[in-house]
């Protein structure tokens, strides 16, 4: 590892500049950093994948192209000022300026950190799926370039799902290339980065739209979920996907605010595209976003609304193009889809037992979320019922609820149609599938809860979402 390895962070810096610029001005770089880290890692994995396909034949050339592109991106985004900075206001701009929220965060953050370190120390390679699928693929990409990296998608490895999208393995392989070896710390840091991104993005957004206290409660709620915490250390793609699901909802929320800038739609499109680039479930999520948002837009402003939402598609398009290229050029067929036939689909849908088992299991997982007595979501529901709903209902969280709800329905449908043993499929994947939407559900709930008149609000030009 050399000092040059630090260049691996250039996409994160570029994303932080971008988010700060979207807020107008250059303020809040640190505030945006956790969200920017997730977005930067995601976009850099798409770019890296594109560079890997070029006939460069050496890591040196790949790194040279990567560094040049991201240095240029940083420079351009830093220089270009699409909007004037928001005027200064007297109100508090940092949601952690007040000491009680800070104190309240210490215990859950410390607890989560201890859990993360302790479990990672005993299972540094992650859970079975992490080393067998995601980290193994990253090793193929890193160790096999330029000659045999495509072996990662060989049908011989059908048990490791070679059709899964590439965000996690390419991100790990990219960092290994900069570091110079396949260091165990890279996938661990990646998992920690996305976890921090989720907690920070959700908390910051709620703090900005409601109050600092609500932001802190949001963070505590996410960290109190056993299923969420258990997945943070797994090193699988579920936490990154949860990050992109949440970030898309949050950015869509920002874009739908009064006077929302079209660029927020573009970044929301990038986040939605990155969800598809992370996992196959993310593809369903992206499709849902690209249907629900335009439908809402058309309903509210007809054709002008649809034109206004075009940046959403523009943001997602390059990433979806990379995904299509991967699926067409390298990925073998997906096992769930390859095993389907019209007869199987119809018989599965008519199988009431199967439908009942899948719906009940999803309901239970939503209720418990890995806990033995009560999960976080019922507590969140109690909180929202106790406080009441905000009036008028904010559009962003409502769209978020519609999107996550549709994704849960799509997941139930996937379970019903699965060619595998349903009990085994539910046992081995349901907690992860629900974790993918969990942070977004918490964000929706906390953003919809009514804010009392006396609660200290942050200034409206607060950096963040």
């Amino acid at each position, binding site marked *: 590892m050399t000092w040059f390895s630090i260049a691996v962070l250039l996409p994160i810096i570029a994303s932080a500049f971008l988010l700060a610029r979207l807020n107008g001005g250059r303020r809040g770089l640190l505030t945006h950093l956790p969200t920017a880290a997730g977005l930067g890692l995601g976009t850099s994995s798409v770019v890296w994948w594109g560079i890997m396909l070029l006939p460069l034949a050496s890591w040196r050339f790949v790194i040279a192209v990567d560094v040049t592109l991201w240095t240029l991106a940083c420079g351009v985004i830093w220089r270009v000022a699409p909007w004037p900075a928001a005027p200064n206001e007297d109100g508090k701009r940092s949601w952690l300026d007040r000491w009680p929220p800070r104190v*309240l965060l210490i215990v*859950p953050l410390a*607890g989560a950190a*201890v*859990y993360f370190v*302790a*479990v990672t*120390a*005993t*299972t*540094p*390679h992650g859970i*079975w799926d992490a*080393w*067998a699928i995601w*980290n*193994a693929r990253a*090793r*193929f990409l890193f*160790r*096999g370039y330029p*000659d*045999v*990296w495509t*072996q*990662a998608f*060989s049908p*011989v*490895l059908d*048990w*490791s799902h070679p059709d899964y999208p590439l965000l996690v393995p390419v991100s790990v392989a990219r960092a290994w290339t900069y570091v110079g070896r396949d260091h*165990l710390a890279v996938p661990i840091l990646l998992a920690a980065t996305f976890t921090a991104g989720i907690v920070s993005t959700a908390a910051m957004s709620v703090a900005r739209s409601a109050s600092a*206290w609500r932001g802190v*409660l949001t963070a*505590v*709620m996410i*960290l*109190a*979920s*056993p299923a969420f*915490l*258990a997945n943070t250390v797994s090193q699988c793609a579920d936490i990154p996907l949860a990050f992109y699901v949440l970030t898309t909802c949050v950015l869509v929320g920002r874009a739908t605010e009064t006077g929302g800038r079209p660029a927020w739609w573009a970044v929301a499109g990038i986040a939605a595209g990155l969800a598809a680039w992370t996992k196959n479930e993310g593809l369903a999520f992206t499709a849902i976003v690209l249907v629900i948002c335009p439908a809402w837009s058309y309903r509210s402003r007809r054709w002008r609304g649809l034109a206004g939402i075009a940046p959403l598609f523009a943001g997602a398009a390059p990433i979806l193009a990379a995904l299509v290229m991967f699926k067409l050029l390298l990925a073998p067929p997906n096992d769930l889809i390859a095993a389907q036939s019209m007869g199987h689909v119809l018989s599965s849908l008519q199988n009431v037992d199967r439908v009942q088992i899948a719906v009940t299991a999803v309901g239970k997982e939503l209720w418990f*979320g*890995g*806990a*033995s*007595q*009560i*999960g*976080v979501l019922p*507590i969140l529901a*109690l*909180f929202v019922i*106790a406080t009441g709903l905000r009036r008028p209902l904010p559009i962003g969280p409502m769209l978020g609820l519609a999107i996550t709800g549709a994704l849960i329905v799509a997941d139930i449908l996937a379970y019903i149609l699965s060619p595998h043993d349903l009990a085994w499929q539910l046992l081995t994947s349901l907690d992860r599938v629900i974790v993918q939407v969990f942070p977004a559900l918490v964000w929706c709930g906390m953003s919809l809860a009514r804010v*009392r008149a*006396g*609660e200290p609000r942050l200034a409206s030009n607060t950096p963040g979402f």
Partner: protein
Amino acid sequence: MPLTSESSSRWIFRSARTIACGAVLLLLYLPASDMVPIAQWNLHTWGRLRERHRDAPDTGQDRANQALASVLPATGVVGFLNASTGDATRARYFLQYSLAPRLLVPSIDQEFVIEYGVPSATTGLSRDARFALVKEFAQDLRVFRRISR
């Protein structure tokens, strides 16, 4: 008088907010507490590993598996044979993880074959005249090379 009323309502509001926050946090302790035993167990395991100056089990296994790379070709397909009577799925998948970018297939049709497990009196490549032992790495891992078809 209005000032007193305002400050008293503010106090009531703050108290109500504190109680509500406290109640929610108490409730949130219920799901969070389920993670405490897992954290404790992992801390205990980590402590024991450090006491004995040992790596995590997977790290040790990965290192042992990667030692096989010294006698295997850098790329290509390598065979895998489970000579034990038990299930070797995890061992095979973990070997694949360690030995990437080589491809590991459950077959003995390749030039190099990794034999896993302790063979019984009648099984195992050491009794197969078509193979010669290249190196034995541990009690349960051996690399063989095909010497004739």
